């Protein structure tokens, strides 16, 4: 709780305390914690002198502002038309197999969350996905496996 308070205060100091600062602050929280908790929203509401419900209403409008905890790496696979045409379902199946989770779930070690998302603007290079901010395109099941292995290796090295 104290940490969240500190985080929100820091973000409010950085971005300001007007309504125009709300999205940047919420994005900052997500950047740090992958999601915006109840406590975080109450703190944001306090800093900006608005209702907590209003913060909730704004946050839930945007698909990149999650209100439930996610893993360290959020995988968003594009499900829109051309990526669908070029086999996003196989990509998702492969990710489910590699990560041993279903779409929408987070791995037990809280490292990976697998989600679908709307058009990533990589239609000429579908299927495409984002891992956090990083885009990966022209995916094949093999390529996906390699990418995930790299992330896993990175985690092992970090430890």
């Amino acid at each position, binding site marked *: 709780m104290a940490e969240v308070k500190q985080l929100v205060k820091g973000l409010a100091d950085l971005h300001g305390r007007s309504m125009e600062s709300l999205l940047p602050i919420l994005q900052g929280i997500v950047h740090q914690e992958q999601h915006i908790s*109840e406590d975080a*929203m*109450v703190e944001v*509401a*306090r800093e900006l002198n*608005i*209702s*907590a*419900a*209003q913060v*909730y*209403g704004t946050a*839930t*409008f945007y698909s990149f502002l999650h*209100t439930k905890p996610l893993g360290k790496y959020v995988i968003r696979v594009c499900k829109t038309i051309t990526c669908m045409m070029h086999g996003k379902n196989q990509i998702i199946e492969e990710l489910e197999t590699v990560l041993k989770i279903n779409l929408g779930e987070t791995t037990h070690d809280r490292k990976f969350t697998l989600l679908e998302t709307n058009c990533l603007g990589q239609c000429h290079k579908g299927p495409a996905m984002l891992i956090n901010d990083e885009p990966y395109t022209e995916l094949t099941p093999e390529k996906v496996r390699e990418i995930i292995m790299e992330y896993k290796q990175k985690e092992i090295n970090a430890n």
Partner: protein
Amino acid sequence: MSDKINLKIDNIAVSIHGGATILEAAKKINVRIPTLCHHEDLCVAGNCRVCVVEQVGSDRLIPACAMPVAEGMEIQTNSMKVRNARKQIVELLVSEHRADCTRCYKNGKCELQELSSEYIVGEGGFIDLIAYKGFTIDNFSPSIIKDDSKCIRCQRCVRTCDQLQSIGALTVAHKGEHMKVSSFFDKPMFEVVCTNCGQCVNRCPTGALTEKTYLDEVWSALNSDTKHTVVQTAPAVRIALGEALGMPPGEIVTGKMVSALRRLGFSSVLDTDFTADLTIIEEGNELLQRLKKVVKEKDDSVKLPMTTSCSPGWVKFIEHAFPEYLPNVSTAKSPQQMFGALAKTFYAKKMKIDPQDMVSISIMPCTAKKYEADRPEMRSSGFKDVDYVLTTRELALMIKQAGIDFASLPDDEYDSLMGESSGAAVIFGATGGVMEAALRTAYEVVTGREVPFEGLNITPVRGMENIRETSIKIENVLPEWDFLEGVELKTCVAHGLTNAKHVMEAVRDGKAEYHFIEIMACPGGCLGGGGQPIPTSPAIRQKRSEAIYREDELKPIRKSHENPEVVHLYEEFLKEPLGKVSHKLLHTHYTERNRY
């Protein structure tokens, strides 16, 4: 923008000020355009699209509620294109609404039902979406039931909660198919900042937001042989009840209401106005004591300005939003709760009734009163002081159920002991009324003279202006109050919680200095309460207000301290204002609450 704009609606010429909407222009020439998200008290939303009309020469239809008039416009409100589109929109709304009409609390009073009937939304509409969606009914609050399956997302409630009231209990969450009216993290209403004011209930066009009803419980009590039912009626009920029973706004129906309550079978028909007078004595004395401690004794543990405490919506609001100012709230209970505490003590004793057998019922213009009666503090008689709270609307329903022809009822009088009241008590129902009543008494206590206003009408505190500041110079005081000689008593009256918030922010920021602040949670005060007949509008509230001040003028007694039953209560039971008994029965304390 004051220049006249000329346009034609349905080939009828109309001239209206610039900036007006097509809806307003149509109203001027008595062309009715149906609306759902529109409400006179709220900002324009333009989201239901029921009010679309055709502008000649334009392919797309335009929303009459949101589109400003323009010179030379030609509008068709009833073209084929408009009717087709409007019917489809109503059909769409019905498809996402659990149209369980015969089982709905709002059956017969639902704006969507009315429109569906007008546009003959029969079979062969769209696929019922309710079947595809989970929904929740939140009935945990003692005041308000929120049924998401009936919601048509017009957002009147959100605009009410957020803008009219600045409470922020309701918001719009999610988007697309998941978009819904929600509280913070979709928590039950009783867990969030909801003040139970019920203004959302007053404005919900469907059965998505309704008051929690206690009719069954009250009927059971009335039909029980062993129970003694004591009913109290709040000041603002008597000037609005008629509206729910087919009368125009602004009718005073006090006598008929008393008759009806007797016919319904209440054992004792008493008046909240009696304890309104009592509130003035206790609260007025509390104010004077606070002034004495601050001005004379320089006791900085005592806080000024003092705010009123009779509006339970306001009390819960300040507990959430300005907890640091809780010591400023008068400790005097609201008239409803003073009544409840006395009914099961003083009245029970006098009438030789075992308080255990007594069922205390109140008729209130308010949904927050249901919550107030449920507060754990409100058991000073040793029992739940007020057992059930019914709204004006619920009483009207009882009268209908009982088959009583309200309009033909004779006038009747309240029972004695707790049935007498002054004009000062009646005006509790209007914004500024508590202030006026308190001044009528306090000024006289301090100076020995009546307030220096003609006919005791303290007009500067009256009216519908958002925030009304007044100052009264106190001169030639009685010796006991010498420290008040020459003091300008600064008062402030605010109604609606947005105005309340502004006042408290001004106090907090040192921008305003007051001694006494009256705050009513609802626009117009209790006469605009969340339990009052629907619809509400500035014009309707104005009519109710005029009725209240008429009732005040008609009262032989105009000052609370002259109410003989109150005088008798002190002599026989309470002994003195702010005394030991008062402290136990008539005063309370407050709790800091969460910020969501």
